């Protein structure tokens, strides 16, 4: 698949390229830690791998080079991927940073540092990101006890980060009202007292427009954002640590809580990764139903995102129109999975249950409501002068910039780049049916809103075609090392009973290996990098959350804009805290 990159590395790096291997069709190259940055640079410039989709750490206690750094690179033009790995020893866990090559690596490296204590030399701001700054130890190391708790309550002032960032270069007017500012606004803020010449404002973590729980500290000049420092981790629930402590199946319920607005897509993404690891092909009907459930989830997610975004802009009524439609889709999800939000619908090897009776009529009526809602909302917003003035050119990002920053999903498509995993790397039957990839032109808030609106229509088209073509058949694979045997076999045959016992007591045991599986979730490429050591639990279950690199670019997007734009941009990026903080 991407053997050319391995050859390229071997050619250019010589001895520094240690080895290469391929598993389930995904090429990996291992390089010496000294050649890490050089290898990335070669792959980016000569290999045209322009997007760093993911970078994470890995722990192998007891081995000579204990820590491993894994980067997943992608070329949007060539649609090719490669995995690059390196190792560093426990006594000096440091490698050079990749932020100079890929700006998107900034937060990924901070997370690897936070979780494993790997130091990235030359990183501009190597600071904990998900854990509190006073946290002791590195939670994802295998020797960090899962039960250990470290409660903290003092907030980070973030002033250290504020100092190293470049403020927006627009002229700053310091007027005579400075005295009022000093005396009045900052009096109660301990943060600002030591920097009393600035007007600092904490937007979040508890703020009506910060849907979820994020904080961004902004320095204001009047209402203009001069500088901004985001802080995340308020909703960090140790998903990856929990995943390592649970069986392969138990993790599915945890994935619900990633992007909690469209949980079935996370279920499907995770199950797909484990299935790839197990090398299972799920039955055809299961594939079609997964597509169906995923597209319904995508519509739900976009309805929430657009509705909430318009609320932030002050157009409250649209929210109700969109939520009426969402309510009906959620009713169907409830009938499908038994829960409205935490669906836990898919299973490794298939689905937990078949679609409910009457789905065809129900979904068609949902789509009808949704189309009417979209029509109403478009009529109220699309040509509204106020909305256009508030969103055109606001939070705009160019296509190249977005790719370097690791943008995926609607936010990337709004810039004009038609990258959609469903189209670029079709899984299930996405290449068998007719649908379009909507793209924007300016990459601003307006485009992001209306790309989402159009995607809902495309998802509706997919749903209609799936409903027409849905074949009969089983919904679970017949592989007995993965799926419980049917009751009559459990009670009626010794093999069935033994299989049931083995699965119930010991769970499934995927072969040793690693996969990076990616699907198009509502916010972009949802990647699961899963490493198995052959046990009943994942050795490492890394989530590449689409929000993570997008929120990383948030300060860049808001600098120079006004306070009101912050919430508009925030809403249009659709940052979901559950997925961002994991």
């Amino acid at each position, binding site marked *: 698949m991407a053997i050319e990159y391995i050859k390229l590395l071997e050619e250019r790096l010589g001895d520094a390229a240690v080895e290469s291997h391929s598993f389930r069709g995904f090429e990996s190259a291992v390089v010496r830690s000294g050649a890490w940055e050089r290898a990335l640079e070669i792959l980016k410039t000569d290999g045209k791998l322009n997007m760093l989709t993911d970078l994470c750490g890995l722990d192998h206690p007891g081995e000579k080079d204990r820590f491993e750094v894994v980067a997943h690179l992608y070329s949007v033009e060539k649609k090719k991927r490669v995995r690059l790995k390196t190792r560093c020893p426990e006594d000096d866990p440091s490698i050079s940073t990749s932020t100079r090559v890929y700006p998107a690596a900034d937060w990924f490296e901070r997370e690897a540092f936070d979780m494993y204590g790997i130091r990235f030399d030359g990183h501009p701001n190597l600071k904990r990101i998900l854990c509190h700054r006073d946290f002791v130890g590195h939670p994802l190391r295998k020797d960090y006890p899962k039960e250990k708790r470290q409660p903290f309550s003092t907030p980070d002032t973030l002033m250290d980060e504020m100092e190293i960032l470049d403020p927006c270069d627009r002229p700053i007017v310091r007027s005579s009202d400075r005295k009022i500012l000093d005396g009045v606004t900052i*009096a109660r803020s301990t943060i600002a007292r030591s920097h009393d010449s600035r007007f600092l404002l904490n937007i979040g973590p508890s703020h009506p427009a910060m849907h979820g729980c994020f904080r961004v500290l902004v320095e204001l000049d009047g209402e203009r954002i001069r500088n901004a420092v985001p802080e995340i981790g308020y909703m960090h629930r140790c998903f990856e640590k929990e995943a390592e402590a649970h069986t392969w199946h138990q993790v599915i319920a945890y994935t619900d809580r990633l992007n909690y607005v469209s949980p079935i897509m996370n279920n499907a993404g995770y199950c797909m990764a484990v299935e790839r690891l197990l090398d299972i092909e799920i039955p055809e009907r299961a594939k079609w139903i997964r597509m169906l459930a995923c597209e319904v989830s995508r519509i739900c997610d976009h309805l929430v995102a657009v509705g909430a975004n318009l609320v*932030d802009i002050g157009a409250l*009524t649209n929210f109700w129109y969109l939520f009426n439609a969402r309510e009906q889709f959620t009713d169907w999800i409830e009938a499908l999975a038994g829960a409205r939000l935490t669906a836990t619908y898919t299973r490794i090897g298939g689905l937990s249950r078949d679609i409910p009776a009457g789905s065809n009529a129900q979904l068609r009526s949902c789509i009808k409501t949704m189309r009417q809602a979209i029509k109403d909302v478009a009529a109220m917003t699309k040509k*509204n002068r*106020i909305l256009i003035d*508030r969103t055109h050119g606001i939070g705009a990002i160019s296509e190249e910039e977005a790719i370097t920053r690791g943008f995926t999903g609607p936010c990337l498509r709004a810039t004009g780049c038609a990258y959609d995993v469903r189209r670029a790397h079709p899984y299930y039957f996405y290449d068998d049916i007719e649908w379009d990839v909507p793209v924007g032109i300016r990459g601003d808030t307006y485009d992001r809103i209306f790309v989402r609106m159009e995607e809902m229509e495309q998802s509706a088209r997919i749903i209609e075609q799936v409903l027409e073509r849905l074949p009969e058949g089983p919904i679970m694979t017949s592989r007995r090392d993965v799926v419980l045997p049917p009751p009559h076999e459990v009670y009626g045959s010794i093999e069935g009973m033994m299989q049931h016992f083995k699965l119930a007591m010991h769970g499934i045991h995927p072969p040793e290996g690693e996969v990076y599986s990616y699907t198009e979730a509502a916010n972009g490429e949802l990647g699961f990098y899963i490493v198995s050591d052959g046990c009943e639990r994942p050795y490492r279950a890394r989530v590449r959350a689409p929000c993570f690199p997008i929120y990383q670019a948030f300060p860049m997007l808001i600098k120079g804009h006004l306070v*009101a734009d912050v919430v508009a941009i925030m809403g249009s990026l659709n940052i979901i805290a559950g997925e961002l903080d994991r």
Partner: protein
Amino acid sequence: MNAMDISIAAARAVVIFGLVLSLIPVLIWMERKGAAYIQDRRGPNRAHILGFRLGGLVHMLADALKLLTKEEVTAAGVMKPLVFLAPALAFFAATATVAAVPFSGPISVAGQTLTLEVANMKAGLVYVLAISSLGAYALLLAGVTSQTSYSFLGAMRAASQFISYELALGMAALALFLVAGSLSLTDIAADQGAVLWRWNAFRQPLAFLIFMAALFAEASRLPFDLPEGDSEIVGYHVEYSSMRFAMFFMAEYAHIIVGSAVVAALFFGGWNIPFADQGLIAANAERIAAVAWPIAAVVLMLAGASIAQRFKKRFGDLRDYEPVMIGLPMMIAGVTLAILYAPLGDVILSTRWLPAAVTFVLGFTAVLAKTLLIASVFVWVRWTLPRFRYDQVMAFGWKILLPAGMLNLVVTAAIMLYLG
């Protein structure tokens, strides 16, 4: 000025302020129901007193009670008198404007000419502009004394927005002064008369649009609700709770009511009813009353019957009987009216004060209807448009409204000069 005059003046003030205060819950109800129907939902319809829900109006009472009994929180280290003063000032500025608004035409009773207004001020228009701009101080006080960055931003927005839009408001009002030749609201309303196309909304359409836009900004209603901006900065009143917070809200609604009443007087002829001037009504008072009486009786009976037949077991408590409890008395009242028409009709229809009473009732109803109709525009716009951004508000105020207002003033002056 004798004791009689003073007591009449005091009575007028009490009646009019009472009217504004009692219209506030009605407007909040209009807002919530209006929002609900715009947004495809039902709105408040559950709370009740002895089964009476009154279409959700009782909810406003429940809300008021809740707000009154809530804990008041005052941040440490603030100047308490100023924190208390802000909501009071907001409410004062919003309601005091009503003093210059006429709620009925002049009526002759017992040789005296009376108008339902607190004071017929010669400089009524100036008074309205002056008092309503005091509202800016309330918002400033609230925002600055709260000592929170968010409310401070709200106060800054309020100050700049109010200053910017007051000019446009004044420009629009000045054109009316040129047309009517008086600054008194009563005179301006009387000048428009009962001829529909002589109303200022049609004679001065540009001034009307400017005035309405500026009024939205002055009342800080969406799309101009930047001082509040609840999804961005939460607003100048973020540190206020309980009844002090409610005062700001009531001030906002009072502002809308009073503003609508001012618009009704300035642009929609006040108490005037299209094509039926005061003299005509007074001359035909007897006929109007003679027709209205049986119509009222029939309408009461029919409406009562249609309400009563909606009786249905739904809640399992007193609320089920609400249609009957309202419908039956209405039917009884209708029947009573019909019965009384024969013996009492002639007596009442031939009384001396009937013309005055009929003119007053019709004029007052006209003012009220116009006010509520204009207020419903505020509700409608709020649930339709997105919010402006700060720079857009400034650009709109200074680059569009103010020049347009000036242009309108100059053109009006030229026309007035030409017409002599």
